[in-house]
């Protein structure tokens, strides 16, 4: 049950986009149509689920001082966490890109251009940094959290892309066209998502 409530909570209550604004740059840039939004969303879920548990293990066994640390209880390396996390993410996206290109060319042609973008997507690094704050008990919890936040991000980008497709037929004031009205749309979607805020799981 704990896994289930963590899962639901990370999708709706702690939604990466509407509660923390993570991954906004690519969220706004790649949400012009549903198809590409779908591809990027999938890629984000995939990379999050793979890197977050990896960073969890690094954090638990190398960075945090204590009985689990392989360098002994007195070595505090936590100041290195930013550089280690981003290195894992960058290396992983590079690796995934090469593997997918070699073995799954069909998937590569649909995801390909988004994979390198993901290394600098705040949602991925943000997930790892939140993981560090949340103190998960084991790898399973961190993986469930990764899947949940990835799905939340996916849901948000596909929803926005669908709205923007419809929005292109409406008569928006000239200075608001494009990015301005998108911001306001995301704000209104955020207000709708706040309905989940009061739920405590």
């Amino acid at each position: 049950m704990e896994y289930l409530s963590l899962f639901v909570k990370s999708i709706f209550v702690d939604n990466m986009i509407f509660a923390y604004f993570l991954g906004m740059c690519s969220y706004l840039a790649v949400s012009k149509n549903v198809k590409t939004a779908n591809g990027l969303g999938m890629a984000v879920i995939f990379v999050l689920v793979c890197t977050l548990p990896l960073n969890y293990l690094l954090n638990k066994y190398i960075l945090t001082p204590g009985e689990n640390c392989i360098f002994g209880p007195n070595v505090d390396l936590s100041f290195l966490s930013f550089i280690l996390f981003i290195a894992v993410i960058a290396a992983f996206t590079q690796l995934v890109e090469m593997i997918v290109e070699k073995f799954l060319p069909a998937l590569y042609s649909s995801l390909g251009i988004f994979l390198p973008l993901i290394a600098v997507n705040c949602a991925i690094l943000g997930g790892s940094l939140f993981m560090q704050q949340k103190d998960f008990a084991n790898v399973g919890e961190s993986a469930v959290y990764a899947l949940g936040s990835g799905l939340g991000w996916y849901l948000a980008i596909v929803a926005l892309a669908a709205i923007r497709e419809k929005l292109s037929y409406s008569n928006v004031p000239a200075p608001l066209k494009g990015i301005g009205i998108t911001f306001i749309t995301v704000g209104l979607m955020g207000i709708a998502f706040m309905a989940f805020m009061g739920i405590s799981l």
Partner: protein
Amino acid sequence: MANLKETFLTPIFKGNPITVLVLGICSSLAVTVELKGAFVMALSVIAVTGLSSLVVSILRNTIPNRVRIIVQLVVVAMMVILVDQFLKAFAYGIDKQLSVYIGLIITNCIVMGRIEAFALGNKPLASLVDGLANGLGYGMILIIVAFFRELFGSGTLFGFPVLKAIGYTNNGLMILPPMALILLGCVIWVQRSIQKDLQEK
């Protein structure tokens, strides 16, 4: 020298990284609940963009093109760690309040964007100026949004009660995340009404 002046002035209004280039929204919106946090965040970003543009520009002829992303990430991560450690030492309360968003400066698109677009092809001094100016342009928007959110959300400015004297009731919606997006949409609206050439078709 006229060139440097232009490099400095463009990012602050005409080519503002947030409202025109739509970069770096990820970590910016969540820190605008009050002016103090926004101010510290703006200073941190100015320091990181300026210094990492400078360092990358000095190294630009020695970085192999294929691995440049990871080299840039390491340089940026190093600068962010310095800023984070500095804040932990001298402003611990604010560092706790900004939580993961300081770490997320690493994936702030402004930093990477300016390095890719400017520092890799220009001399160190010009890159430093460009980095600082982009940080300033970012900080300015941050301060504008934070000003309205704190004034109408809590009735204070930098923590001093301002609106309480005239019997103002705090508007709780301004504190909540979606309002930051809507306010930013309005800032873009105002800017594009003044500068007609920025309007999208």
